[in-house]
């Protein structure tokens, strides 16, 4: 099998068995990036030279028998994670030339375990978007095609570059961040697995902030097991993040293949929403049948505040964003546009540095936090957030895990959705509630729809019970036997 089609688990074995070297494995991926990135635009900054050098060191470690879990494995890193000495842009003009002098905790953990970074992946600007069309470095193309046409589809967002890179074989896995669905929705659109851990499971230190009470890093890969391997490395307590939770990191891979006999799977009635496509409804029913066959008990549950999740999100997230992005002032880092006065400089810098969606969210957040409106919007949204979390807490008294669709439709074409921001926000209708509640959730590809595009199902678990997600996800993966590959990929481009 081609090196760009292997799973992380198989590649790690192959490296130890000396079937191929880390340099060969990494070079296969950097060659693929050279060949396909000009079209897909999945990477903002490929780091070929550093990657090949790191691969040599990985081979030395392997020769000495000092390999760790990810030694020699080529990964893409969402360009929202600060990487020491490597430009980190957040896909924004304001950070176009920002070179962090320090490493995020999540990427430091991956480096500790031997991972080789092949580049910084594209995203929606500051992770604000659902189609990877707001990047200052241009949109990402989804490597999947509809049957019989070549129209460029979106990869989803905001971790669209990571999802496209993993799907096309330009990385074996990638980091993502998820604020309202930014790992799960692009994973579904690109036919890969994406896991958003419990809020507090992975450190946020060194990850450029969008909405701090929601942002969470997680793995994206081509199998459930690969996500378990990556999460094992990424997760853990960090003194430098006050929201990091100090609890043990279990052996995630051990959950794969665990018996599901007697596991109670909740099916929330409210996710049969208007606008759910027939093919996704059918995939959902198929998933229910598979889990029943695996010994699960299917239980109907209700999450009554589901419909308010998005509106709550679009108050809370912009409010936190307006506060977080106040730091981009053109003084200490980032691009500066000169002005005669301090305020003129701020205003010119932030107008030129931020794209329209980011400016819109900052302004929306500024408004809902402003004097006289705070109670009507922000405080109200925080109260509704309590009710959304209570829905989940009550459901998890009856069931062990929830099964829902990840997104209401498969990937759509660039420019196909209307210019109305609210319409774009609706892509996250099924992913946002778990984010608001801080619950872990994962998207698993389960089949192709009528037009040949991948469809994903979402599993939502109890706080810090990523293991049940991995166990249930691996059962879905096995039943689905999802081996479909996108039209544009490294192997096909040779």
């Amino acid at each position: 099998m081609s090196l760009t089609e292997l799973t992380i688990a198989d590649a790690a074995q192959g490296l130890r068995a000396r079937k191929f070297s880390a340099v060969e494995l990494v070079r296969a991926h950097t060659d693929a990036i050279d060949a396909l990135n000009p079209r897909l635009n999945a990477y903002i900054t490929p780091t070929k030279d550093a990657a090949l050098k790191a691969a040599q060191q990985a081979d030395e470690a392997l020769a000495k028998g000092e390999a760790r879990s990810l030694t020699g494995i080529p990964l893409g890193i969402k360009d929202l994670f600060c990487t020491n000495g490597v430009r980190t842009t957040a896909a924004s003009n304001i950070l176009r030339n920002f070179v962090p002098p320090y490493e995020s905790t999540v990427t430091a953990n991956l480096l500790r375990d031997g991972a080789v970074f092949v580049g910084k992946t594209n995203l929606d600007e500051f992770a604000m978007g659902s189609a990877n069309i707001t990047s200052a470095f241009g949109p990402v193309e989804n490597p999947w095609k509809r049957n019989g046409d070549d129209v460029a589809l979106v990869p989803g967002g905001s971790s669209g570059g990571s999802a496209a890179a993993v799907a096309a074989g330009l990385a074996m896995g990638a980091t993502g961040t998820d604020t309202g669905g930014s790992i799960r929705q692009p994973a579904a659109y690109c036919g890969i697995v994406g896991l958003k851990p419990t809020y507090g499971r992975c450190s946020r230190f060194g990850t450029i902030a969008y909405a701090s009470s929601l942002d969470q890093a997680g793995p994206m890969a081509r199998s459930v097991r690969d996500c378990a391997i990556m999460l094992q490395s990424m997760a853990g307590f960090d003194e430098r993040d006050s929201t990091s939770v100090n609890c043990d990191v279990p052996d995630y891979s051990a959950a794969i293949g665990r018996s599901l006999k007697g596991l109670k799977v909740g099916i929330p009635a409210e996710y049969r929403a208007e606008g759910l496509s027939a093919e996704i409804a059918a995939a959902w029913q198929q998933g229910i049948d598979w889990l029943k066959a695996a010994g699960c008990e299917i239980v109907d549950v209700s999450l009554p505040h589901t419909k308010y999740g998005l509106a709550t999100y679009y108050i809370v997230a912009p409010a936190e964003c307006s506060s977080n992005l106040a730091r981009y002032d053109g003084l200490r880092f980032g691009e500066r546009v000169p002005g005669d006065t301090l305020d003129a400089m701020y205003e010119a810098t932030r107008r030129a540095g931020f794209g329209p969606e980011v400016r819109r969210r900052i302004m929306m957040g500024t408004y809902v936090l402003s004097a006289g409106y705070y109670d009507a919007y922000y405080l109200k949204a925080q109260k509704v957030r309590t009710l959304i979390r209570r829905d989940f807490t009550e459901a998890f008294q009856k069931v062990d895990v929830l099964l829902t669709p990840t997104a209401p439709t498969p990937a759509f074409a660039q420019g196909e959705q209307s210019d109305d921001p609210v319409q774009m926000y609706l892509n996250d209708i099924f992913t946002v509630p778990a984010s608001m509640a801080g619950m872990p959730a994962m998207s698993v590809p389960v089949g192709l729809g009528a037009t040949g595009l991948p469809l994903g199902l979402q599993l939502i678990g109890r706080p810090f019970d990523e293991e049940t997600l991995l166990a249930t996800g691996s059962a879905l993966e096995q039943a689905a036997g999802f081996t479909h590959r996108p039209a544009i990929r490294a192997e096909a481009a040779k």
Partner: protein
Amino acid sequence: MSLDPATVRRIARLARIGIDESDVPALQGELNGILGWVEQLNEVDVEGVTPMVGTGHAALRTRPDVVTDGNCRDAVLSNAPDGVGPFYTVPKVVE
């Protein structure tokens, strides 16, 4: 709740985002669209509900008040867009 052009200009000013007069109508329309849509939250009865300020999984920690990091002035200044020596520069703020 509907924003008028003056409020749009005021929000932009508070956010320190420069806008032209020609930007105002489009921003007004977009922001009002979003605000109109979030009005649906008025249907929800939140009487007596405690606001959720975080997910509550992490208890706030304390630690000894000692220096744990530092001595990295050059690294901190390395991305200053217009640094001079060990200083950031700003436009003149005192006449």
